[in-house]
């Protein structure tokens, strides 16, 4: 990031993550480099299988059990490498720096324990405070995440709360360790529109007031438009396009980004041409083939696209922060982008 003088909080360099099971070996993340700066919202956008979750949770050692993971490259947080650490050390680094909000709060919370004590024990573990202090912290967290009547809700079981309330508890849990970075993995996908709006509002509030960086993993362009400062568009484990939210969403350059944006209808404004989507389906990531992963679905694909992996290059003349992995689109210039 050439326009920022700040040190990144969390960065990954040339990250490659292979997932191995007895049946298949999948290259989930294929050479990704990204930085997260203090207080910013970085949206990692992609469809299922794009590696957005593996890329963020993999270096933190939070991938599901039963899969063998091979991580190469470099990942660091506040100057400390996250890779090649023991489970204990990684857990400590994770607790000090990250708070994680999962898509489905009901499976992330213990159904047998009341939510207040769950929060308190998390705070006790991460902040090394006494039981009494932890209770105070837990109540304060419930208040901070906009849960009405925190004293009353303290003694509720997860199943007694609605989806929106649970997601607030999940956020409170993520905040329990005073994290510098919140990782929100599809935080509103399971929620209804009116509740989703409330949760996004809350996240925005936390980010602005407390200057916590947020890595927002999502497939929902509308959520990105509402929340993000910067966007990384992932396709098949690689960054297709990276830049500020305005650049990527209003002046997309990569054909995949364009296709993705044109797949999302907007009911505001004029009713335009019907959306078409992108023909075909995401590639099989179990075999490593040369060239651009998007080539087989790309309307602009040429011979060279299937031969050589496109490098992520800076759009030097426009905005150095805007990087695109498509030499063809870059050479055509960004003037032709579908500025809607």
């Amino acid at each position: 990031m050439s326009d920022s003088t700040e040190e990144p909080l969390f960065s990954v360099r040339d990250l490659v993550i292979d997932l191995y099971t007895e049946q298949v070996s999948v290259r989930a993340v294929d050479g990704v480099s990204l930085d997260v700066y203090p207080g910013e919202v970085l949206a990692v956008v992609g469809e299922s299988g794009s590696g957005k979750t593996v890329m963020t949770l993999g270096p933190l050692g939070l991938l599901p059990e039963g899969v063998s993971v091979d991580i190469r490259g470099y990942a660091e947080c506040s100057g400390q490498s996250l890779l090649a650490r023991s489970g204990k050390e990684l857990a400590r680094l994770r607790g000090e720096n990250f708070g994680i909000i999962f898509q489905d709060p009901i499976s992330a919370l213990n159904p047998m324990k009341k939510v207040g004590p769950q929060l308190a024990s998390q705070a006790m573990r991460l902040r090394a405070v006494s039981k009494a202090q932890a209770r105070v912290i837990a109540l304060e967290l419930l208040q901070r995440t906009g849960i009405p009547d925190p004293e009353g809700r303290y003694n509720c079981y997860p199943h007694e709360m609605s989806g929106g309330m649970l997601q607030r508890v999940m956020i409170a849990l993520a905040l329990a360790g005073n994290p510098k970075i919140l990782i929100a993995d599809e935080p509103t996908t399971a929620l209804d529109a009116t509740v989703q709006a409330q949760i996004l509002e809350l996240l925005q509030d936390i980010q602005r007031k407390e200057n916590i960086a947020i890595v927002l993993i999502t497939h929902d362009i509308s959520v990105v438009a509402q929340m993000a400062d910067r966007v990384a568009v992932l396709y098949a484990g690689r960054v297709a396009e990276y830049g500020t939210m305005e650049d990527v969403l209003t002046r997309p350059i990569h054909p995949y980004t364009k296709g993705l944006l044109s797949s999302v209808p907007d009911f505001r404004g004029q009713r335009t041409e019907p959306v078409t989507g992108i023909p075909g389906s995401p590639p099989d990531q179990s075999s490593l083939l040369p060239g651009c992963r998007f080539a087989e679905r790309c309307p602009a694909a040429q011979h060279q696209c299937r031969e050589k992996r496109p490098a992520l290059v800076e759009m030097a003349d426009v905005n150095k922060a805007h990087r695109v992995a498509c030499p063809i689109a870059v050479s055509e210039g960004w003037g032709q982008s579908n500025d809607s």
Partner: protein
Amino acid sequence: MTANTNTLLEVRDLTVYFQGQNKHQPVRAVDGISFAIPEGAFHALVGESGCGKTTLARTLVGLQQATSGEVLIRNQNINSLLKNRKLLAKDVQFVFQNPLGALSRRQTVYQSLEEPLLIHNVGNADRRRQRIHELAELVGLPLSSLDRLPRSLSGGQRQRVAIARALALEPSILICDEPLSALDVSIQAQIVSLFSQLQQKLGLTIIMITHDLAVVREVCTSVSVMYLGKVMEANNTEPLFAQPAHPYTQALLSSVPSPDPNTESTRQRIVLRGEPPSPMAPPSGCRFHTRCPKAVPECSAKEPVLKPQANSGLIACHLV
């Protein structure tokens, strides 16, 4: 939206209650709904989870028994049609939310597509093969996928299989329960355009349950907005999106973020307080009054009826 001569499907005062934990307090999933769908419509049922839209859809294909009221298909009561399910199956078909669950994990695509033909004793093996190839072409499935199992297909292809299977018996009504929510964005758009192509090509009447308002605006001709088991507003798509009249519709529309950052930054948000109340004990009067930003005392006392408006549409609100 009014019943006319070519009404294909009609619902009259439909209620569907479930036995909840509390015997005296049933879950009132659908609580008095009436509407008529003309032939060739592409109608959307929108609302948040728990509003009863899925229950309503399931009642329309007889997967759920109505507690009271009627479902009429071509003026015939669904209960009499259900005496011979095969008859109903030829007229009304259903597309499920999650295609992976709706397809047997042990059947190849070919077997799944052949199943309705076998149940209805359609033709011989050759005739069936021909029909299956037709169906695959209709929904854009490559023939090479016919021998594969659902789990080895992509999400979009699975949903295409489910749609092809629903169309195998040439139904006139297709009821789709959140057919897009399990799919990726770029694939959703493919399936949406498939639906509108099919509708035009086959003259289908489609009722689509969804929470995705942008998709509704894109392809549907008319919309019913549901809240806690009731229809709050029903109208043709254009006027509903241009001038939402019911406060709930307004809030629902305003809550959806826009994918365009320019629009997004100027969006007027009506953030509703709290969450929908329990359908076991819906609020008195207008069900929405507990969250409605415009509620007046009358709203909690008297339940508004869904009545036609001067310009267009049907609205259940005292203030309109």
